[in-house]
């Protein structure tokens, strides 16, 4: 994505972020027994949701990559998962801050959502080291796609299993908020999700554009006779020739 569409996205994103912040700070009601620090939930939940969607999106791009063997899908998958890891780290940190504010502990095993999120996060943390340890770039892309698909399918299965374990032993003592969600809270949540999703998309597009431009530049240099080939090992996809149809 270049030019006007990227510019539109670049403007829309900060607007949405500021709007969501204002809504969360002033429009959503204060939770009765938890105080203002509870409001970090309006950052934590959107981050977590967007992270999980990012992982699943990465898995979908990986499926497309395996079906078409087009390296551009591998790049999209890689960037999506990479971004999701960063957003996921933020989600975990804000989640722990919220846990401290709401229940007085930094971590709570009985909170099934947080726990299953941690497991998924730990799994995807192995994505980049695994990519890095495969030297053949084509094989690296293919194996990364197999990983992304398996891990993407794992997200719902894991959530179900952890939920079951939790419900069986301990009834759900702790809910997301004391008394259920009011309409104002819903609005604030929705605004937060939209804003964070826009931020994710924006950063994703920036990264893709950056990498694509670099590849094209290297390909042009090669055409002009410069024998420029990327050396060394890398976890990120580096080459770009779209496959030609079999004649």
């Amino acid at each position: 994505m270049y030019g006007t569409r990227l510019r539109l996205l670049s403007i829309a994103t900060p607007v949405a972020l500021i709007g969501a912040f204002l809504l969360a700070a002033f429009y959503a009601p204060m939770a009765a027994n938890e105080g203002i620090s509870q409001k970090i939930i309006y950052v934590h939940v959107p981050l977590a949701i967007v992270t999980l969607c990012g992982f699943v999106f990465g898995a979908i791009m990986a499926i497309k990559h395996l079906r078409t063997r087009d390296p551009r899908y591998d790049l999209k998958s890689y960037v999506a998962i990479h971004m999701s890891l960063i957003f996921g780290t933020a989600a975990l940190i804000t989640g722990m801050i919220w846990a401290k504010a709401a229940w007085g502990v930094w971590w709570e095993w009985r909170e099934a959502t947080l726990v299953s999120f941690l497991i998924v996060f730990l799994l995807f943390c192995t994505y980049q080291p695994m990519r890095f340890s495969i030297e053949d770039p084509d094989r690296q892309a293919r194996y990364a796609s197999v990983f992304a698909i398996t891990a993407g399918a794992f997200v719902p299965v894991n959530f179900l299993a952890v939920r079951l374990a939790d419900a069986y032993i301990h009834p759900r003592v702790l809910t997301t908020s004391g008394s259920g969600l009011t309409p104002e809270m819903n609005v604030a949540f929705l605004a937060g999700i939209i804003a964070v999703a826009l931020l994710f998309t924006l950063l994703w597009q920036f990264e893709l554009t950056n990498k694509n431009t670099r590849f094209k530049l290297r390909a042009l240099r090669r055409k002009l006779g410069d024998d420029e080939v990327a050396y060394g090992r890398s976890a990120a996809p580096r080459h770009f020739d779209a496959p030609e149809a079999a004649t």
Partner: protein
Amino acid sequence: MPTEAPPAVVLEKLVRRFGERVVLDEVTLSVPSGQTLVVFGPNGAGKSTLLRVLATLLRPHRGVVKLLGEALPDRAWAVRSRVGLLTHESLLYRDLSARENLRFHARLHGATDERVEELLDAVKLRVRAGDPVHTYSRGMVQRAAVCRAVLHDPEILLLDEPLSNLDPAATELVEPLIGRASGRTRIVTSHDPAGGLADGDLALGLRAGRQVLLRAAADVTVADIGELYR
């Protein structure tokens, strides 16, 4: 009027990459059925990669590859049973005996146990066929590998320096299986200019993935081959 048999191997501008590096750069050739193509070139020129593409182990990234009229990679599954590969790796499990290894390959290819015994006899490995492969000398391993390569009676043979590790007696033993006397279409890589040219009908010279030489072997001199390595 007899129709001419289609060429056994056809390559048109075959390209194979490793990341951004081009390993085979638009290789184009055609090998008539029953003839031998000898491939020369320094290490890293792409000889082994070429063999692996023809063995259907690697996909062509661009260009046309046709084996016995079938186009790769789509028809690779159809042609696998008609191609035999012999490389530096024996593809034999060192802890199993030659007989056990060959029976395993035979079952994968649909060949019979009798065929296994027949080949073990032909390379004079019958006596030691029950011992684990890690007890074999290199020459014996190579002979067992030759059996593996021709177990399923392939029409095309892809041979990567097949006579390395073989003494003259062993070379004689394998000649009817993988040599000119076998009558099959062969693609052989070689580091021996004189021997290779004598063995081949067609000669291909590769350097850094590019084909720099493609002529009838009779028209190529040893000096020409020496040029490749300079």
